[in-house]
């Protein structure tokens, strides 16, 4: 809704971000807590086990949870500090509404709810149901993700629901569905430990999934060779056996050339290819001209290194290939994923011990959240909203007529574009901060300013919600019971440690009341989270992501259950494809031809430098949570422009100089950090900050045609030295998103 209601300074003064610290003597009760609650970290897809210390209904500290099998007490700095949110001074405690010229003021739940419902009805009556959109996020539990999907289709009755996984795992999901007919990593992390060769492509594991690092090292202790594909020497790349410093955008050229080498040397599993796959010939035809000289030119990686990687991969008996956003955030993200899968299928190393493949899911519930229906094209159990049988099954579970179920809607970025065009007039968001996390965010801001009504559900006032008409104070991870599904497909239990403070409510209670007021209360008659999960079990039954056999009791007893788990007596499926029966229509794993394409924006005389973005270890995604935790902010206070000394020299840039980075979409100033740990033709900026320090002012909004993921990882920029040194004031206030 319109521009900010008052100055950004005054909004920040009241709602932060402010840096929260633990008092020197610890929070009251940390040494004699009322209880220790076993749950999980609220951040990444590892979902490390952790125990929260609770005193007087407040989270006051943590204690490692040694028995949880994945992390056995290990945590990253975000995990150690995650407990600082429930007690945080910025925590939203009451519904607040926009007051022009003043900012925000407290309002009652009654007023907030009735206003929201009347605005939804007004907009939908005038402009049609799809003119009110919903954007969701996968920090939400499975129960809440499922409920959001149902809420949008049954209560809000809009087709336009999508989620922030659209910025995360959708390229991998689309690729996996094409190749395997199912979207989940094939093996558990345990299988990593004995893989002979590990390729990790576009995944800064040690900063974004720090606790997974231990598994990589265990494999190396057992003799594994580690190959890292990354334009930067990240902490995990530093000690790798082979680092392939790919030019951003060159991934599928690398994997295509490797496939050709496998074929040329007959490093193939013919039995597997002949009996369990299809499309091999078309795939190798597509790469027949991709020789080493061509690959070196396209990828910027020395030919000898590509040859070495292919040879190690080709000759290995066991292997694991992992990738993440580095290869997926592209306008050819799905192609990049498929080109990796082709390497796995050509060597037949899947469905066996120590032979695995998968994406490393980024968000806390990036896996479960992408299975149960808050994507624009999807219904629970990873069903297809355009498939008549799937629609009928879910309509029956929901007790609605299939004809009343909306169809496929717009994806997240397309929703913003439709708002910008004036087609969507109203928006409800939960757990999504698009003004920081979407590309070309000056465009996103323009779109927000066109909304007639915007209501946000969140526990902090994030940068996007500053533009809202109304903010409903929802719940933190530790304030509501539920389940999440980790990056390895393990469904784990999130236990409620405390109740939401003051007038804040559980997210699910907010959705239920809105549904009631929208006349769909009978479809949301849940008394506890387990009721929702039990309905989700039925809704997922028979789908590829089948949770039917998973119960809360079973999860707690086994410290997690791996889906698919089709019946209550089924133990779950830690390792997929042991029967070689893939979930595609023909039951085979599919090779897919991947002809190389250039990124949507390549460097030219005007914009001569490649720009890429990513993360740092102390921050998480749009920073709405981690930019409020003092020590995490202090560890890396402002985004730095990583630049190679040779490129810096060319522009006369010295370490610590302020440099304007300009693209066709915007410009921003960052201090230069001159390091040899990046390609000479590429600069890197982390994206966790909003306002003037936001890297996403510069990134490009081109979408992958299949997955609709934006091309965050490559665009073209100019570098303009300002001649000034970095400013202490900017460094000290960057976390607040001015």
């Amino acid at each position, binding site marked *: 809704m319109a521009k900010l209601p008052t100055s950004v300074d005054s909004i920040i003064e009241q709602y932060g971000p402010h840096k929260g*610290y*633990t*008092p*020197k*003597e*610890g929070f009251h009760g*940390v*040494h004699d807590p009322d209880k220790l609650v076993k749950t999980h970290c609220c951040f990444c897809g590892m979902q490390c086990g952790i125990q929260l210390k609770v005193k007087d209904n407040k989270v006051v*500290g*943590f204690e*490692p949870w*040694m028995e949880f099998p994945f*992390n056995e*007490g*290990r*945590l*990253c*700095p975000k*995990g*150690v*500090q995650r407990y600082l949110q429930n007690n945080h001074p910025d925590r939203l405690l009451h519904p607040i509404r926009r007051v022009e010229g003043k900012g925000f003021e407290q309002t009652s739940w009654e007023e907030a709810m009735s206003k929201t419902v009347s605005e939804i009805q007004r907009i939908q009556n005038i402009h049609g149901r799809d003119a009110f959109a919903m954007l969701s996020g996968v920090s939400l539990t499975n129960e809440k993700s499922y409920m959001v999907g149902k809420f949008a289709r049954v209560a809000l009755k809009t087709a336009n629901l999508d989620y922030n996984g659209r910025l995360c795992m959708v390229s991998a999901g689309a690729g996996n569905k094409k190749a395997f007919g199912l979207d989940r990593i094939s093996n558990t992390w345990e299988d990593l430990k004995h893989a002979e060769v590990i390729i990790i492509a576009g995944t800064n594991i*040690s*900063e974004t999934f*720090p*606790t997974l*690092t*231990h598994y990589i*090292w*265990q494999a*190396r*202790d057992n003799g594994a060779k580690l190959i890292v594909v990354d334009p930067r*020497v*990240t*902490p*995990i790349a*530093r*000690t790798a056996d082979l680092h392939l410093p790919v030019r951003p955008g060159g991934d599928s050229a690398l994997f295509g050339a490797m496939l050709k080498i496998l074929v040329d040397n007959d490093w193939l599993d013919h039995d597997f290819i002949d009996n369990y796959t299809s499309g091999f010939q078309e795939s190798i035809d597509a790469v027949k001209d991709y020789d080493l000289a061509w690959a070196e030119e396209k990828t910027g990686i020395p030919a000898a290194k590509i040859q070495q990687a292919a040879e190690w991969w080709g000759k290995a008996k066991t292997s694991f290939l992992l990738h993440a956003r580095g290869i997926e955030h592209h306008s050819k993200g799905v192609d990049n994923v498929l080109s990796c899968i082709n390497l796995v299928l050509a060597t037949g190393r899947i469905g066996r011990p120590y032979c695995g493949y998968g994406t490393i899911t980024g968000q806390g519930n990036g896996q479960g959240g992408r299975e149960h229906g808050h994507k624009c094209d999807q219904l629970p159990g990873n069903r297809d909203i355009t498939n008549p049988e799937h629609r009928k099954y879910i309509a029956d579970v929901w007790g609605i007529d299939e004809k009343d179920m909306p169809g496929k809607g717009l994806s997240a970025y397309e929703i913003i574009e439709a708002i910008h065009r004036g087609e969507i007039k109203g928006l409800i968001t939960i757990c999504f901060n698009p003004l920081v996390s979407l590309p070309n965010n000056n465009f996103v801001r323009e779109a927000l300013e066109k909304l007639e009504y915007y209501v946000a559900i969140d526990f902090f006032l994030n940068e996007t919600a500053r533009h809202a008409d109304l903010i409903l104070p929802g719940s933190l991870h530790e304030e509501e019971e539920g389940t999440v599904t980790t990056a390895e497909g393990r469904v784990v239990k999130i236990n409620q440690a405390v109740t939401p403070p003051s007038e804040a409510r559980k997210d699910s209670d907010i959705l239920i009341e809105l549904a009631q007021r929208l006349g769909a209360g009978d479809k949301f008659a849940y008394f506890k989270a387990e009721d929702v999960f039990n309905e989700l079990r039925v809704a997922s039954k028979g789908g590829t992501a089948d949770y039917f056999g998973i119960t809360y009791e079973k999860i707690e007893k086994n410290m997690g259950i791996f889906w698919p788990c089709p019946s209550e007596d089924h133990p779950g499926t830690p390792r997929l494809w042991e029967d070689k029966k893939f979930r595609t229509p023909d039951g085979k794993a599919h090779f897919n031809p991947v002809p190389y394409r250039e990124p949507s924006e390549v460097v030219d005389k005007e914009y001569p430098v490649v720009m890429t973005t990513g993360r740092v*270890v*102390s921050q998480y995604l749009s920073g709405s949570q981690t930019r409020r935790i003092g*020590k995490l902010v202090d*560890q890396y206070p402002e985004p730095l422009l990583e630049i190679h*000394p040779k490129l810096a020299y060319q522009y006369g840039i010295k*370490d610590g100089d302020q440099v304007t980075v300009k693209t066709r979409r915007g410009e921003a100033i960052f201090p230069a*950090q*001159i*390091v*040899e*740990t990046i390609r000479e033709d590429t600069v890197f900026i982390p994206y966790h900050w909003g306002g003037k320090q936001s890297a996403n002012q510069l990134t490009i909004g081109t979408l992958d045609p299949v997955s609709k993921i934006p091309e965050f990882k490559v665009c073209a920029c100019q570098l303009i030295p300002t001649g000034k040194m970095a400013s202490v004031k900017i460094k000290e206030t960057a976390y607040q998103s001015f």
Partner: protein
Amino acid sequence: MQNPQYNQQMEFFIDMQRCIGCHACEMACAECETNGQESMIHIHYVERAVSVQTTVQVCMHCEDPVCANVCPADAITKDDFGVVHTANTSRCIGCSNCVLACPFGVPKKEEKAELMMKCNMCYDRTSAGKKPMCATVCPSQALFYGTREEIEKLRPNSTPVNKFLFGQEQVNTKVNIMMPKGSTELRIHE
């Protein structure tokens, strides 16, 4: 100080090649009630301009601790398990002798408190059969707490070393540094 749960076989091992510079150890260390939100372990870049390599600085718990030897107030003591304890608050006079004497540059003087503070190997946790907080949370297990037998089995490509040579001076420590296989000592100065 005798505690039946304190396992004397347990040792502390640091493997710099595994350190990912995440600072989880510092943040976890600071949580300890006696540390007042200050960490007793420190992570530094070696030279960020050329590498992301980080290094771990923490008390090495010397067999013959120079810090204790030079303390004029007898504030620093080593216990029967080889743990060199942080300065006794009632004795420490804040003279900084230990700060200057430590060959590893570990003790820090808390200027506000006029008190030396350093790692005591999480005595509260280790004496109760737990691991020190830093080694518990370390996500890459660059910090490992366990027996020598365990680490030799788990990490066959490295050897723990606890003998350091500073010129002619030999320092043996309770804390081990993981070195390339077959190493027996670490020479700091020729």
